[in-house]
């Protein structure tokens, strides 16, 4: 299970109403169904990271509630694991130990943790690299480790903050295909944050477009295209144009 509901969420940094207070998100509501891949799209500063931080439990909403499977979210935990743009792998641990970290924190016995980790390492295509350290891997490989590490704990919701933004464009597009492959093999509720229109269309079941600051719900656009998605498909191109216009509009207002 893993449905996410965000209802009436407002986030103000600083004291609301006081000078210097920044309203990052305003009265935002949406739902993500179980095993749905949902992308939050919006341009820089519209509060995407803020939203992710609140879902993860690093910050509290000023108003409104965020719930997973009907239960309001508490402090961070494995039910809402997260992937970071800069990988955030533990440099002192090998690939295997990085992936085993979550199961170990869940107090799984070592053998079981290792079995789970090796399974995920194979799934993300890193079999043979178990004993490497992160600094010995390329950016794409590191992000695979990060994906394995976030998946191995069986989160209800997988959170990703611009996971491929640090990669070169070829690796990025390859990793997007890989993510789709892995997600179909291991369906998960995913909330991914990005400002790349292509990434949003390529990956998601549904795209949630945020307005510029303060972030409000601007549109929800389902993507009904078979995966893997072809960039030259007319629906893909129409969708891309629609989203680009929307984002442009926001930038002019913002």
């Amino acid at each position, binding site marked *: 299970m893993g449905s996410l509901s965000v209802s009436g969420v407002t986030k103000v940094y600083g004291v609301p109403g006081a000078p210097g207070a920044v309203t990052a998100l305003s009265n935002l509501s949406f739902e993500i169904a179980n095993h749905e891949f949902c992308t939050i799209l919006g341009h820089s500063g519209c509060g995407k990271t803020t939203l992710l931080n609140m879902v993860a439990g690093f910050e509290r909403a000023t108003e409104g509630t965020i719930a997973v499977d009907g239960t309001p979210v508490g402090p961070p935990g494995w039910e809402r694991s997260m992937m*970071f743009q800069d990988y*955030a792998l*533990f440099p002192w641990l090998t690939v295997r130990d990085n992936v085993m970290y979550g199961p170990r924190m869940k107090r799984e016995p070592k053998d079981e943790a290792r079995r789970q980790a090796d399974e995920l390492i194979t799934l993300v295509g890193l079999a043979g690299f178990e004993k490497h350290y992160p600094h010995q891997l390329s950016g794409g490989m590191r992000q695979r480790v990060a994906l394995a590490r976030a998946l191995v704990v069986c989160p209800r919701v997988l959170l990703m903050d611009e996971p491929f933004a640090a990669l070169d464009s070829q690796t990025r597009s390859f990793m997007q295909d890989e993510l789709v492959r892995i997600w179909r093999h291991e369906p998960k509720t995913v909330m991914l944050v990005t400002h790349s229109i292509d990434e949003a269309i390529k990956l998601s079941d549904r795209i949630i477009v945020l307005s510029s600051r303060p972030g409000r719900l601007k549109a929800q656009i389902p993507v009904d295209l078979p995966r893997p998605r072809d960039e030259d498909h007319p629906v893909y191109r129409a969708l891309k144009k629609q989203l680009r216009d929307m984002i442009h509009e926001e930038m002019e207002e913002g």
Partner: protein
Amino acid sequence: MPHPLRTTTTGPRMEGVAAEVPRPAGQPVPPAVQTAPPPSPAWRRHAGSAGRHLSRYALLVVLIALWQFTSTVWLPAKDPYLAVLMPAPTSIIAATAELVANGDLFMHLFASLKRELSAFVLSLAAIPLGIAMGWWRPVYVQVNPVIEILRPIPPLAWIPLSILWFGLSDMQNQFIILLGIFFPILVNTVTAVRTVDANLIRASRTLGASEWDVLRTVVFKAALPQIITGIRIGLGVGWMALVAAELVGATTGLGFMINDARSILRTDIIVVGMLTIGVMGLLIDLGIRWLGKRLLPWSPALAK
């Protein structure tokens, strides 16, 4: 600001500069000279690097030769008493052999090392304290003022008071060394903990780590390279403090040995002691560095 001493290094540098003289603009770049150099045999490359190593010590060799000359020829000719004050390298070697043979050198060396080691073990308390200060703001706010007042007091300034507290004992010596080792470890641990990559902590929390897990498995690990740097600095400061403490309040140890030699005018023993202190300090430093590299192969900071 050009440093006057820098000019001494321009000799070898100049070659590098000359090799890269900018070409006049417009002149075509000549094709790289393709007279392929004969593959240089391994032995030759070795000989070359050995030669370079030797030439690095040229000044040292000259100085030692000068020293030998001064002590055995020039000073005795002027005033025999002066010659005693400046023992020749050869008499230092002789004294070393004597001290090794009768066991004195190792006895004092081990006494010093033992003090350094026990003070070091005690000063490891700086690590948990430093982690607590770096992690919990209230701890930092309360403890830091105390640290900031105590830290600038040189360990040697504690000698008089510590003699009154502990008497002329091992305890007193260890206390002085402890002061030398403790603060560098503490300060480095605090900084290390405060600069741990926030995303690593966040990643571990989203993977289900409790606060204690985060401290144990992330903060401590991420801080280790800099903690080791703190230990290196601390052991160095402690080693200096140790010798000073032994000069005053001990009946064994290298510090005692050189001070004792002074009272019987054995300048050769003094110099042997000084050199042992220097070499041992260097070995401790190299040892910690080596350990750090081996234990934390992932750390770019320690790989240097």
